[in-house]
């Protein structure tokens, strides 16, 4: 049996010619990431065990994005802990308020992740960077601390499900609909311990933003990582961003135990109902009127410029329904600036939305849009677990930026043609 893309990257980083599924390895890391929630726990461990130094100050990234700008005194203390540590060890990639963005939008934008690299992050959505052909996976704070000290991480080599992409997405359908469709099919543990590897002739119809959204939610199917084959679109994306050499890995033909064909042209706008991402319905299957109280457009899943563009095109000249609080969060400073330059912010404000500085805020029920008892929200975020965005009786419906924008205008879950 040949090797998957993931296995080839892991083998190269473990100094081995070959690895097999199930094998335990120690792999060299190209980047170790943490945020303001997970880094303090890692720092506590790092200091408790009195490591003298970090393995490489240029290969650690810390992003203050979850509860930043500081939502309360405790959150402020946590950011302060990170800041002090980053200054103490002269960490190159420490991103604080004013420079930060949502980590998984920021790192690809800054060129800190590239094809063929081996990356861990103390954040479950670290799998996002697989969009660029990297092996990238979410870990915990102990792994982050060990990674910062040693520059390596232990892995159990995963097997993989191959998604063979065919044809192209229809207009109005985006990467979010693709990944919700997949999770609806295979379930929230459908790829447990496995890699989800994407390739095939349909790949060329997916933009980088589509791929980033799809890889981002691989974790919601239980996957260790999501990874895309590298093509001209990936190379063009990395051209002005990545300043170092990178490797491109292609999978062996006989590497996969499961291959799923995915006809992109058949995918419809899809919504995940409470309280699991696998509870999907296509927009035309929703017959009842589901009134909503809030819409959130943003997050590491859908806060990129194309997401903003889709929302702006739909909201232009319209107004959100009365009593639907619509919160739009461009994911990074540069996306925010681009939204200003392109006039999107005016469109959003004129439509009755608010626009927030980059933050994970409401996605994980931190702040900036918490739900009250029995309230409903359509969100472009990634999880709709019980209590995720607020009160335990509140409900989150996961959807694409287009569905979220149409729903904000309609006041209930809606697609292009309305309810």
């Amino acid at each position, binding site marked *: 049996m040949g090797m998957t893309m993931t296995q080839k990257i892991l083998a190269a980083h473990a100094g081995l010619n070959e690895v097999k599924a199930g094998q*335990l390895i120690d792999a060299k890391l190209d980047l170790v990431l943490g945020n303001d*929630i*997970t880094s*303090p*726990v890692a720092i*506590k*461990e*790092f200091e*408790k*065990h*009195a*490591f*003298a130094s970090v393995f490489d100050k240029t290969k650690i990234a810390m992003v203050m994005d*979850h*509860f930043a700008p500081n*939502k*309360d005194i*405790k*959150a402020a203390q*946590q950011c302060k802990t990170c800041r002090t540590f980053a200054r103490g060890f002269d960490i190159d990639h420490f991103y604080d308020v004013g420079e930060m963005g949502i980590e998984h939008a920021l790192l690809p934008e800054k060129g800190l992740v590239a094809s063929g690299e081996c990356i861990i*992050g*103390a*954040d*479950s959505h*670290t799998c996002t960077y697989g969009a660029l052909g990297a092996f990238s996976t*979410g*870990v*915990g*704070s*102990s*792994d982050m*601390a*060990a990674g910062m*000290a*040693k520059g390596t991480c*232990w892995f159990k080599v995963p097997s993989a499900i191959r998604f063979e992409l065919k044809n192209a997405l229809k207009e109005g359908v985006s990467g979010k609909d693709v990944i919700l469709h997949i999770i609806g099919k295979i379930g*929230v*543990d459908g790829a*447990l*311990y496995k890699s989800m590897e994407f390739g095939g002739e349909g790949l060329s119809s997916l933009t980088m933003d589509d791929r980033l959204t799809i890889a981002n939610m691989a*974790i919601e199917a*239980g996957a*260790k990582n999501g990874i895309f084959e590298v093509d001209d679109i990936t190379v063009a994306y990395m051209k002005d961003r990545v300043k170092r050499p990178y490797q491109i890995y292609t999978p062996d033909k006989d590497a996969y135990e499961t291959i799923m064909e995915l006809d992109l042209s058949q995918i419809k706008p899809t919504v995940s109902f409470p309280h*699991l991402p696998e509870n999907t319905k296509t927009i035309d299957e929703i017959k009842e009127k589901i009134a909503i109280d809030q819409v959130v457009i943003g997050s590491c899943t859908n806060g990129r410029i194309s997401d903003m563009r889709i929302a702006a095109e739909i909201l232009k000249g319209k107004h959100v329904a009365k009593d639907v609080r619509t919160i739009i969060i461009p994911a990074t400073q540069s996306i925010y600036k681009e939204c200003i330059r392109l006039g999107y912010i005016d469109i959003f404000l004129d439509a009755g939305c608010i626009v927030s500085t980059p933050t994970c805020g409401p996605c*994980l*029920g*931190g702040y900036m849009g918490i739900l009250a008892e029995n309230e409903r929200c359509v969100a472009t975020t990634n*999880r709709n*677990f*019980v*209590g*995720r965005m607020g009160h*335990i009786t509140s409900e989150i419906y996961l959807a694409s930026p287009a569905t979220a924008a149409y729903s904000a205008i309609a006041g209930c879950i809606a697609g292009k043609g309305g309810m």
Partner: protein
Amino acid sequence: MNAHGIVHKYGDNVDTDVIIPARYLNTSDEKELASHCMCDIDETFHTKVKQGDIMVAGDNFGCGSSREHAPIAIKASGIDCVIAKSFARIFYRNAINIGLPILECEEAGNRIDDHDEIEIDFDLGKIYNRTKNETYQAEPFPDFIKEMMEQGGLLKSIAKGVK
């Protein structure tokens, strides 16, 4: 290594947002995290849990966020072992890394009920249900993981070599 305690039983897909809701992640204090553990699905957990108790659940335990606060909160609550039909992978490695023993066992997940009294022999992977007089077999830890657990977790096991 052994464990012996009373079971707190939960279902499938227990996610890290209910194990420790994000609104409490503005601290890394173990006791404080423990005081909110499981609160969104079981308000009384933190008052009824006793040192040495055991948590049992269905499939995909610990899915969702990578927050290590989740196994930390469970361990600091007094739980000595989590048994589930399957674990989400980040939770699995986090638990091992912090030295919280976990066992995957389909039969135990199916047969064990809330309040059952359980004994575990980790070396053999044997789970004995004293209440029902039944024994279930789980995979014992691979040597690599066993050594890490015995040394008190990932950081302790690597600290000596790196300093």
